[in-house]
């Protein structure tokens, strides 16, 4: 049911629209960063860096807007839960944006001498995190928790793949000391992806609170 006060309704809709925009930008950024990993395209990497500015701006815009609504409207019940969660979720989204930028920047520095299996594994890891981001944002926008378990499991998969990847890169580094800087970049990118998974887990906790009115006991 819509709010009797149309202006208030439109203010809340604006927040939702900005969240959708932030989420869709992040998904695009993620896809671009993974493409850089494959192509080492410096121009595309720079575009990812530039676009991150827009995500940061949205973070501040939404934050200011939520602050205003709280002051002017004194929201309660599901409106309050939505605004409260939004404030926390946009911080995670903004941090995910930073990790994606970091991946794009580091990807350009990885030399072509590195076996492609590493970049492929990293791309696969990134895709897992990208799907996780997409699914979590859908849960948020559609206010449903049906995919929550699937998302949590995907985070476990990412953690596991990250651990295996690190071991493999370390083993490779030991044998090839000329690729230590490249290997370090690979490890840092893997870590960035793993952190994205953690932020998504945070977001899912907020979505749970938004829908259920309490944090999950898991």
């Amino acid at each position, binding site marked *: 049911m819509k*709010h*009797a*006060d149309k202006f208030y309704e439109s203010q809340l809709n604006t927040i939702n629209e900005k969240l959708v925009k932030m989420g869709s930008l992040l998904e695009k950024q993620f896809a671009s960063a993974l493409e850089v990993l494959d192509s080492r395209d410096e121009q595309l990497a720079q575009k990812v860096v530039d676009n991150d500015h827009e995500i940061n701006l949205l973070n501040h815009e939404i934050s200011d807007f939520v602050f205003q609504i709280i002051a002017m409207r004194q929201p309660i*019940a*599901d409106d309050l839960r939505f605004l409260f969660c939004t404030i926390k979720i946009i911080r995670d989204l903004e941090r995910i944006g930073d990790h994606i930028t970091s991946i794009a920047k580091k990807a350009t520095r990885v030399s072509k001498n590195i076996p492609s299996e590493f970049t492929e594994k990293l791309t696969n890891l990134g895709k897992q995190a990208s799907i996780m981001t997409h699914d979590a944002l859908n849960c948020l926008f559609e206010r449903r928790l049906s995919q929550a378990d699937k998302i949590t499991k995907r985070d476990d998969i990412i953690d596991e793949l990250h651990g295996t990847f690190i071991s493999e890169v370390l083993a490779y580094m030991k044998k090839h000391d000329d690729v230590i800087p490249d290997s370090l970049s690979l490890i840092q990118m893997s870590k960035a992806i793993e952190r994205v998974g953690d932020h998504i887990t945070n977001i899912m906790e907020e979505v749970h609170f938004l829908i259920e009115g*309490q944090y999950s006991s898991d």
Partner: protein
Amino acid sequence: MVNSIITKNLNVYYGDQQAIHNISLDFLKNKVTALIGPSGCGKSTFLRCLNRMNDVIDICRVEGNISLNGMDIYSKEIEVEHLREKIGMVFQKPNPFPKSIYDNVAYGPRIHGFTDKKEEMDLIVETSLKKAGLFEEVKDRLDDMGTSLSGGQQQRLCIARAIAIKPEVILMDEPCSALDPIATSIIEELITDLKKSYTIIIVTHSMQQAARVSDKTAFFHLGNLIEEGDTSKIFTKPDHQKTNDYITGRFG
């Protein structure tokens, strides 16, 4: 947790029109309970049943049971005057008598024959005004007319008048709707203070006020009790969608 007032299967009719539908709701002693809901939902009718204010409305018929500390308040043996000694009421608009501040407070104790002695009456007046947080502001002008006070002070005078007859329960029907934010916050602070000694039931249209002052909240809609519970729960995650819609302003 002890119940002060228990209502069971309460039905209220104005002629053929049913205003309250089978409501059972208990009020905890020394707690503030807020009754909320859109206009015409029956919350004021319900409140007025609690001290038989509806008795004066000819077409009003009350069925069911209301008890105060186990005493059936609609029993034939109960005198309404005696009941209202136990259950005081403060109204939407401050309504001091056209008498002095002193006499406004002393009126109730006088007609209920609490005392004949001037010193004892002085003490009742002073204590009541102190409990209502008004004494310091009026102690030097107790002979001034009650109506000469500001709106907020008049409402506190009405609260002092209610307290003076030592009630157990105070009913408040939108007590701050005619007051400015400062006077409102003084009354709200007073309500929090008063619950140490009294059970308070307040009807309010201000969601923020209900959230600020009450321990329990009951939501009424079309004469039905939709939901009641801890105020902190009702205003963060109500169980019923209708409650959520109303408190967030989604009611059409």
